């Protein structure tokens, strides 16, 4: 009889049933979409942050830094230490290989250029296709790494033996245009001078220290300087996890960690862990996370995730409350019917059970529909914001199921309490 009543209630009061199911579906689709987006937003923002450029630099161990901040100051004391170009593909074989977005080597030499004088000639990869030991092939090079550069003209090709790109500052100062030919001479280690004539293929503005250099394919610079197979520095761009205490302690001194902590650190995509793994595969190398990039990425990532978490909580709470309110309204509407049932001798429990079952039935139907709709909604958000699909996380399903139960129970119980307090006579007389 109980089932029969529920069945009848569902089929005869189709509109009401659909309305409850519909509102639950709306709320749940919102919850599903928000939860999915929230769980995926970290990865997506991390991708977007890659425009920051490299967050790990690799240098030969023991080399004094020839550095300048923001292109200021003269570097001096170049140590005679190098990394091996042949080892570079190994970077894509480390534990966190999939998190390595891009990398590029650099070799800088002092050159004497005709009409310019002393200038830094910087060799790098542009878009080199690499066959890595695992049998796959990947692209690496400066083109993807420096996505913010303004380049007038085409990027160089790696096999372009007599092309050069000129930094904006140098080009402005010496009035260099695309198509000009520049004769460059480099003193190699034995003191012998080797020269070649290069054609300016394009100009670039980086807004950074590279604006003062001549940029050429790595092979050209190696040949001129007699440093075949050598590179001075590697920039790596990797997707990383924001640093925490453990990561900072590991960065100070990896030996201070316990074995267990060390394993956690090694198997988490901290910038310092990835740097450590790069050191393992490149001989005599020293990889350092660029804190300026890593710290700021970490901050932005954490804030974004927290922001999304709070927004999700708000929308979950709101949809739960709104749906619960609707369910309550729907139940209260039936006071006459409940009054009649009570007059016929229905016990409190039977009434509560009846209402709960009915609400739950419609909530489950609505929840299922809402989950599917929410996945669609998450895709719409993912595509329009990040241009990438949001992956459906399995964790969302139990959360959503819990929410459906909570909404159904939370929505009908207060109404039930009210209905139970009704006296059948009053209800039936419509007072």
């Amino acid at each position, binding site marked *: 009889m109980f089932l029969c009543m529920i069945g009848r209630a569902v089929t005869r009061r189709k509109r009401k049933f659909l309305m409850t199911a519909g509102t639950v579906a709306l709320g749940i689709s919102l919850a599903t979409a928000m939860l999915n987006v929230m769980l995926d937003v970290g990865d997506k923002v991390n991708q977007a942050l890659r425009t920051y450029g490299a967050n790990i630099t690799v240098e030969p161990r023991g080399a004094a830094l020839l550095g300048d901040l923001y292109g200021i100051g003269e570097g001096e004391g170049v140590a005679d230490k190098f990394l091996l170009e042949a080892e570079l593909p190994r970077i894509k074989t480390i534990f966190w290989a999939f998190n390595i977005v891009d990398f590029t080597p650099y070799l800088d030499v002092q050159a004497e250029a005709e009409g310019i004088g002393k200038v830094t000639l910087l060799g790098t990869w542009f878009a080199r296709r690499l066959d890595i030991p695992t049998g796959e092939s990947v692209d690496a090079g400066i083109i993807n790494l420096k996505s913010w550069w303004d380049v007038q003209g085409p990027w160089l090709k790696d096999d372009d033996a007599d092309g050069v790109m000129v930094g904006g500052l140098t080009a402005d100062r010496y009035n260099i245009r695309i198509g000009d030919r520049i004769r460059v001479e480099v003193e190699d280690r034995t003191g012998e001078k080797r020269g070649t004539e290069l054609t300016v293929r394009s100009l670039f503005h980086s807004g950074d220290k590279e604006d003062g250099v001549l940029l050429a394919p790595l092979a050209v610079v190696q040949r001129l300087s007699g440093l075949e197979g050598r590179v001075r520095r590697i920039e790596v761009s990797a997707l990383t996890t924001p640093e925490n205490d453990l990561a900072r302690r590991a960065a100070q001194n990896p030996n201070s960690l316990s074995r267990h902590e060390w394993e956690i650190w090694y198997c988490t995509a901290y910038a310092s862990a990835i740097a450590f793994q790069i050191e393992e595969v490149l001989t005599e190398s020293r990889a350092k996370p660029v804190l300026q990039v890593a710290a700021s990425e970490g901050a932005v990532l954490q804030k974004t995730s927290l922001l999304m978490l709070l927004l999700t909580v708000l929308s979950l709470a709101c949809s739960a409350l709104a749906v619960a309110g609707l369910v309550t309204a729907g139940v209260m509407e039936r006071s006459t019917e409940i009054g009649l049932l009570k007059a016929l001798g229905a016990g409190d429990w039977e009434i509560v059970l009846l209402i709960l079952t009915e609400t739950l039935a419609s909530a489950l139907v609505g929840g299922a529909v809402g989950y599917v709709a929410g996945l669609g909604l998450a895709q719409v958000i993912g595509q329009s914001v990040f241009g990438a699909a949001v992956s459906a996380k399995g964790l969302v399903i139990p959360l959503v199921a819990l929410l459906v139960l909570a909404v159904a129970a939370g929505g009908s119980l207060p109404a039930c309490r009210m209905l139970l307090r009704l006296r059948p006579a*009053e209800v039936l*007389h419509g*007072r």
Partner: protein
Amino acid sequence: MKNILELHDVSMVYGSVTALRNITLSIRQGEWTAIMGSSGSGKTTLMNVVGCMNKPTHGTVILDGEKISRLNAKELTAIRRDRIGLIFQEFHLISYLTAVENVMLAQYYHSMADEEEALQALERVGLGHRAGHLPRQLSGGEQQRLCIARALINHPKLILADEPTGNLDESNQAAVLEIFHKLHDAGSTIIVVTHSPEVAEHAERIVQLEFGRMVRDGAPARPMVA
């Protein structure tokens, strides 16, 4: 005396059910008419047609010289407001307004809400002391008397009561009928729809309906009981 209500050949069809068949009826001003019939005989339908709450599917209804069967919904509303006082079996009071406010509601839609006048109307039906109570605090008889007060407040040309005593016990029924007598003596035109011969006997004229047809029209069988 002139006719306040004339029905010519009025029929009402709901889908495949014919609720009224070719009713022709005229009621004079000041007359107290009872419309009788068992459940489903069409008496409530007739009342709804006369009370401008439904339009007949066929035939003409003339109320106080106006052919209301030709009017649109808005004009019907105006007629209902100005010329008809409705009394329902289920009272239909607004639960969140007090007794006096329920009376004032009718005034408000008619013209002006006047608390003095509304209180007087309550006084007349013997509810002066309960003016500030909500409907759920009133007994059934009190609710019905409140309903009557509300129906009378705008001095309607015609008072329409649908089973006014259907939900009341005997003493309350007597009180309500007494009010009707007073109204009748004061010259009001009253139509009472009822299935109870006891109530109908108080009227001057009884119209009997069966399956939507008028089967009897005349004075009560027995002499009127005062």
